[in-house]
């Protein structure tokens, strides 16, 4: 086996807690009501094209992409639109959502529901991009950048490597892990599809070493496919960060303030690649995703296939409900996820996990004096000095913040995780970035 790769500086080793890695993906079933937000991506919200009272099927277009940096939103269930107005979202703010009452389970007729694997890719690159666009696919790793933009290479830029991100370095989460085990071949075909769009024969599936089952299945299958290979990486957080992964796999760096394309790479999450496969080969728009429900207060942790718009509380109930000791419910992973204000908030295209954490695991400890141990400097995968960022941010020193490249922070939280004085370094980094961006406007 080839050498295991990793990024050279920084990184931490949080407890893995991958307790659901051997739990097969099960269908979550249908809730009574789904709430489908019109903004599940970076960019402008989609324009709503349905009205109260409309009957929809799973796969019906609900909202149309508004501009280039936007994405279509589809219905995930069949039923009746009962409300087109603002509903309380994850953070407690009102967000524009389409509320659908579920009736039966009908799919749009264009969707190919057969389970067969289709290997042939008869489409031209432009057709493929159009199919991806009209399926509303966005980066499902968490950032939610519309995929069509990411796969169409502008004139003058040369891409030579496609990296499939199967790292999933966040603790607890196993959604991508299970997907790679159960849908390995689909993902590989998906990689071939993107290869065709980019006109290259070099797709690398990066998997970290704590997923032996996925590695075994993928390495066996990739032998029969030209131009798709598996690269095993060392387990280290935040290996799944786009920039860190590019550095680990190719040794190149994305120039500060630029995109991965400038380093000749495109990184796609394996979940996104699977969605691309379904969109191109099966005509199925993106309205389902895999979600891990886990955490130390979750009584029955599982991996679910979930319709977008399903309230998180529906999944939590399926796993035994919220226990008395639950201190926080987290959307996403514990390192970069957000703690939910409203647990009835819907699962979106970007929600990779729901975690129920006890006070012991999620409590914030009191901030004490910095002892200058330098652990944050050693942990930062970007090479920043978080302690200094915290100091400058506290004193509102904007020029100095700019000078130490605060905008290159990827907000991975390694510094705050490792800090023995419990200083919320990530908070300061985020505020620092916010203030620097403010002055740029």
């Amino acid at each position, binding site marked *: 086996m080839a050498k295991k790769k990793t990024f050279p500086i920084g990184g931490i080793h949080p407890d893995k807690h991958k307790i659901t890695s051997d739990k097969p993906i099960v269908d979550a079933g249908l809730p009574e009501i789904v709430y489908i937000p019109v903004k599940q991506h970076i960019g402008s919200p989609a324009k709503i094209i349905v009205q109260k009272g409309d009957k929809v099927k799973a796969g019906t277009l609900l909202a149309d992409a508004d501009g280039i940096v936007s994405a279509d939103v589809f219905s995930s269930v069949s039923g009746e639109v009962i409300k087109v107005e603002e509903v309380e979202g994850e953070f407690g703010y009102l967000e524009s959502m389409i509320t659908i009452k579920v009736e039966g389970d009908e799919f749009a007729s264009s969707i190919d529901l057969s389970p067969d694997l289709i290997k042939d890719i008869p489409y031209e690159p432009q057709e493929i991009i159009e199919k991806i666009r009209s399926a509303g696919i966005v980066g499902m790793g968490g950032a939610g950048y519309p995929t069509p933009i990411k796969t169409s290479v502008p004139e003058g830029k040369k891409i030579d490597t496609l990296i499939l991100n199967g790292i999933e370095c966040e603790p607890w989460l196993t959604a991508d892990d299970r997907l790679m085990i159960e849908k390995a071949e689909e993902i590989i075909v998906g990689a071939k599809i993107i290869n065709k769009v980019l006109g290259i024969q070099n797709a690398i599936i990066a998997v970290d070493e704590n997923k032996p089952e996925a590695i075994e299945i993928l390495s066996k299958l990739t032998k029969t496919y030209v131009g798709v290979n598996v690269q095993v990486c060392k387990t280290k957080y935040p290996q799944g960060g786009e920039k860190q992964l590019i550095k680990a796999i190719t040794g190149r*760096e994305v120039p500060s303030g630029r995109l991965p394309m400038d380093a000749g790479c495109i990184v796609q999450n394996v979940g996104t690649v699977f969605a691309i496969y379904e969109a191109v080969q099966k005509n199925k728009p993106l309205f389902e995703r895999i979600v891990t429900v886990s955490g130390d207060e979750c009584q029955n942790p599982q991996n679910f296939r979930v319709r977008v718009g399903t309230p998180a509380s529906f999944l939590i109930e399926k796993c035994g409900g919220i226990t008395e000791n639950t201190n926080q419910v987290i959307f996403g992973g514990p390192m970069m996820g957000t703690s939910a204000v409203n647990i009835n908030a819907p699962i979106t295209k970007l929600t990779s996990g729901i975690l129920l954490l006890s006070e012991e*695991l999620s409590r914030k400890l009191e901030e004490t004096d910095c*002892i200058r141990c330098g652990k944050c400097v050693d942990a930062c995968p970007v090479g920043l000095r978080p302690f200094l960022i915290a100091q400058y941010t506290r004193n509102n020193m904007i020029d100095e913040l700019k000078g130490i490249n605060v905008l290159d922070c990827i907000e991975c939280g390694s510094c705050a995780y490792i800090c023995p004085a419990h200083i919320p370094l990530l*908070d300061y980094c985020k505020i620092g970035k916010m203030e620097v961006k403010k002055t740029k406007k």
Partner: protein
Amino acid sequence: MLKISTAPHTGSSTDTQTLMRDVVIALIPAALVAIAFFGIGALKVIITSVAACVMWEYLVVRYLFHKPSTINNFSAIITGMLLAFNLPPSIPAWMVLIGAFVAIVIAKMAFGGLGKNLFNPALVGRVFLFISFPVQMTLWAKPNWKDFLNADVQTGATTLGILKHLDASTSATSLTHGNSALADIPDYWDMFIGYTGGSLGEISALALLLGLIYMLWRKVITWHIPFYYIGTVFLLTGVMWLATKDVRYEPVTHLLSGGLMLGAVFMATDYVTSPMSQKGKVIFAVGCGLLTVIIRLYSAYPEGVSFAILIMNAFVPLIDKYCYPRVYGTGRK
């Protein structure tokens, strides 16, 4: 009721207190060796020093800063133990009390407390005592493990003291000539386990190495500072020894004697007074090594570890200003 907090929602279990506690644990082997070889005198000094440091810290925080007490973070205990380790076993208790005052109140609290001091508090305390009371501070008891109650304490010079007072003509000749001063130098094994005269904590390289291994295993410190510090001293003295064959420059003796091990493992690695980046740590450690060798070989003092570390402490802000990791995606074309 659910709580809302900012990411990351989980943290490592290591905090300031556990880090400091691990350092205290790492110091215990050296303390046991000191008590075994120097008897009750060593025990007295250690207890007095730790108690005095904790007391001063408590008083300052409670009555000057008007803040909740910080003594439970173990940092005052470490300072107390390190100060004791730098003192001879026969030192009177009131001097220890003064040393602790200088260490905690002047070198640490006057700068604002834990994390803000520029110089290593224990070393400042030691150097203050060394300059103020040179006689008592250089009265080196000979180790005697049979004499726990210090009934019959004999004093003698330390290894480095002997080397310092050799003159060039005698030292050029080898040990076989039966030079009386050279005969006083203990053999490597005695120096390694610590059966030799010196400050409490510095005598046993073995005990200090055990502490180092524990701290490395617990990831309290990285290997950079001890390795580069000791390496620099070994290399420089080694080169000079090879060039001159002068027994004063003999590298293994320099490695095992004096406060080098204690300094490199526990003093120079102090978080607060060492640089934050790996690059900076290497520069800091090499600087310490260089100054140690210069002071040991060319100054009036036989030992230079504490001065070397203190001098390099002053350079830490400067090192931190110019040594930091390269930011990803910048500076390379």
